[in-house]
C-alpha cells in the first residue's frame, strides 16, 4: 500500500529564542497533524509563533524540542517537497514572470521546463504576462506568480505565510477564490498562516487557533461545510462567532445579527 503523501505531524514541539540573554518561549507543547490534501489555516494574534511554526515545517528553523515529521520522517532543512509563499511575493526583480516560475526548475531540461512553466502560468491565470517584470505587476498578480513558482516543483505541501496579507480587500477576496480553485485542482496539503478569520473559514477544512506568550494551540476547529462557501450563511457566521470568542472578541448575542 502506498503511503499518503503530504502529512505533517508536530509532536510535543517547543521552541525558545534568546532575547537579551533571556530565553523567550515562542512555542509551547504544540501537537497537531496536517493530513494529506487538507487545507488548514493557523490563526492567532501577532507573536503567537504561528510564522515560527510554519518556518519549522519549511525547515528554516531547527533547534527546537519535540518532533516535526514529514510523511513520518523528521524534517531536516528545506526541501523541494515543500513549497512556500511568503507575505511579500519575494519574486526576484531581475527575472521575468516566466523566469521567476522556472527559478527552482534547474533539474528539468528546456522542453520540460517550458511545459511546466506554461502549465503554471495558465493555472494562476497570468497568460499574456509571461515577459513582464515584477515591478510591472500589481500585488495580486505578483502573488499569483509566487504561488506558481512554489507549485512548479510539484511539492507535497504548500505553506502559505499570510499570502494575501498585503492585498487590498477586494483583490483579497478574489484571490481567496483563486486559492481555493488551485487547491482543488492540485489536491495537495496546504497550510496557511493568516490574521483573517473570514479567510480561514472560507478556505479551510480545519482552523488551528493559537494564542501568544507562549504560543500554544487553544483549539482546533473543523469546518465541514460544502464548497464554495457563502460568507453570509448562518453556519459561516456561527463558526466565525465561535472563533472570535476564542480571542474574547465574540458578541454576546451573535445570532441577533445572523437571522
Amino acid at each position, binding site marked *: 500500500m502506498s503511503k499518503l503523501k503530504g502529512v505533517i505531524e508536530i509532536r510535543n514541539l517547543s521552541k525558545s529564542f534568546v532575547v537579551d540573554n533571556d530565553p523567550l518561549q515562542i512555542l509551547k507543547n504544540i501537537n497537531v497533524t496536517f493530513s494529506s490534501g487538507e487545507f488548514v489555516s493557523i490563526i492567532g494574534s501577532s507573536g503567537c509563533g504561528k510564522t515560527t511554526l510554519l518556518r519549522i515545517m519549511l525547515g528554516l528553523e531547527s533547534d527546537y524540542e519535540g518532533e516535526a515529521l514529514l510523511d513520518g520522517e523528521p524534517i531536516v532543512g*528545506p526541501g*523541494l517537497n515543500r513549497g512556500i509563499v*511568503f507575505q511579500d511575493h519575494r519574486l*526576484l*526583480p*531581475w527575472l521575468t514572470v516566466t523566469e521567476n516560475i522556472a527559478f*527552482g526548475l534547474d533539474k528539468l531540461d528546456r522542453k520540460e521546463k517550458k511545459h511546466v512553466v506554461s502549465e503554471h502560468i495558465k493555472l494562476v*491565470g497570468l497568460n499574456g504576462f509571461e515577459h513582464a517584470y515584477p515591478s*510591472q505587476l500589481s500585488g495580486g498578480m505578483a502573488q499569483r506568480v509566487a504561488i506558481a513558482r512554489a507549485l512548479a516543483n510539484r511539492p507535497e505541501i504548500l505553506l502559505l505565510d499570510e499570502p494575501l496579507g498585503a492585498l487590498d480587500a477586494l483583490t483579497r477576496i478574489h484571490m481567496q477564490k483563486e486559492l481555493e480553485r488551485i487547491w482543488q485542482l492540485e489536491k495537495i496539503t496546504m497550510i496557511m498562516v493568516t490574521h483573517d478569520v473570514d479567510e480561514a473559514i472560507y478556505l479551510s477544512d480545519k482552523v488551528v487557533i493559537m494564542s501568544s506568550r507562549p504560543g500554544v494551540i487553544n483549539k482546533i476547529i473543523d469546518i465541514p461545510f460544502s464548497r464554495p462557501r457563502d460568507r453570509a450563511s448562518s453556519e459561516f457566521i456561527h463558526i466565525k462567532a465561535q472563533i472570535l470568542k476564542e480571542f474574547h472578541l465574540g458578541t454576546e448575542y451573535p445570532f441577533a445579527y445572523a437571522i
Partner: protein
Amino acid sequence: MDLDHKGLNGQIINDQIMNKNITDRFQWKDRLLGLILPVALLFAWQGLVNLKLYSDLILVPPLKVVGTLVYLAGTGELTTHILISLQRVLTGFLIGASSGFLLGLLMGLSATINRSLGPFIKALKQVPEFAWMPMIILVFGMDELAKDVFIAIGAFYPMVFNTYQGVSGVPHKYQELARVFDFKNIRFLQKVVLPSALPSILTGLRLSIGLSWMFVVGAELFGTESGIGYMMYSGREMFQIDVVIAGLVVIGAIGFIMNALLKVVENRVLVWNVSVEGGQG
C-alpha cells in the same frame, strides 16, 4: 476569468511606457540646457580673440584649434595617439577592475576576509593616485608595465568597493529564498548573488573605466613618446597651445562618450531595475 485584473495591469504597463516617453522628452530639454554654457564659453573665447589683447600664440582662436584637430586627424597622428592611450586604458582597467572585482566578491561573501582585508584597502585608498608614481617608477621603471600598474591602481578602488557593496548587500529575503530552493555555492552565486549585485557592479565598472581614462594622461607624463597625454606634453614643450587645447577637447569628448555608452549598456542590462529608470545620474 479575471479580465478586470488584466485590464488594470495592462494599464499599469502602458502608464510606465508613457512615463518613459515623458522622461525622454525632458532629457532632451536637459541636454539642450547643458549646451548653453559650452556655447557661451566658445563665443566669449572668440570675443576675447577678436579684441586682439593677446598674441594668437597665447590666446589661440577656436577655429585654429579645430584646424589643428583636423590636421592631426588627417595625418593619422591623432588616431595613433588615441589608440595607444585606449590600449593602455584597457590593459590597466582589465588588471585593476578584475582584481577589484575578485577581491570585492570575496570580501562580500566572507565576513572574515572582509575584516582582514577591508581596513587595509580603505587605508590604501587614502593615498592620492599620483603619490604612487615615484614608487611605481622605482619598482617598475618607466616602461609600459609601469603605466599599466598606475592605471590599474585607479581602476581598482571603485570596483572593489562597489562589488563588495553589491555582494554583501544581497537582501536577506533572497538568501532565504535560495535556501528554500536548495541553492548552494555556485548556483547561489550565479542565480542570486551576482544578479542582485549587478547594479552596483556596473556602477563600479563605469567609475573604474572613467578613472582609467583620467589616469592614462598622468601615466603618459613619463617615459613615453606616444599617447594623447604625450601629445599634449610635447605640445606644451613646443608652445603649441592649439595642440594642448585639442588634446583637452579629445580627452573630454572620449571620456564623455565612454560614460554615455556604458550608461546605455547599464540601462539595457538593468531594464528590470525601476530605480535606474528614475535616473541615478
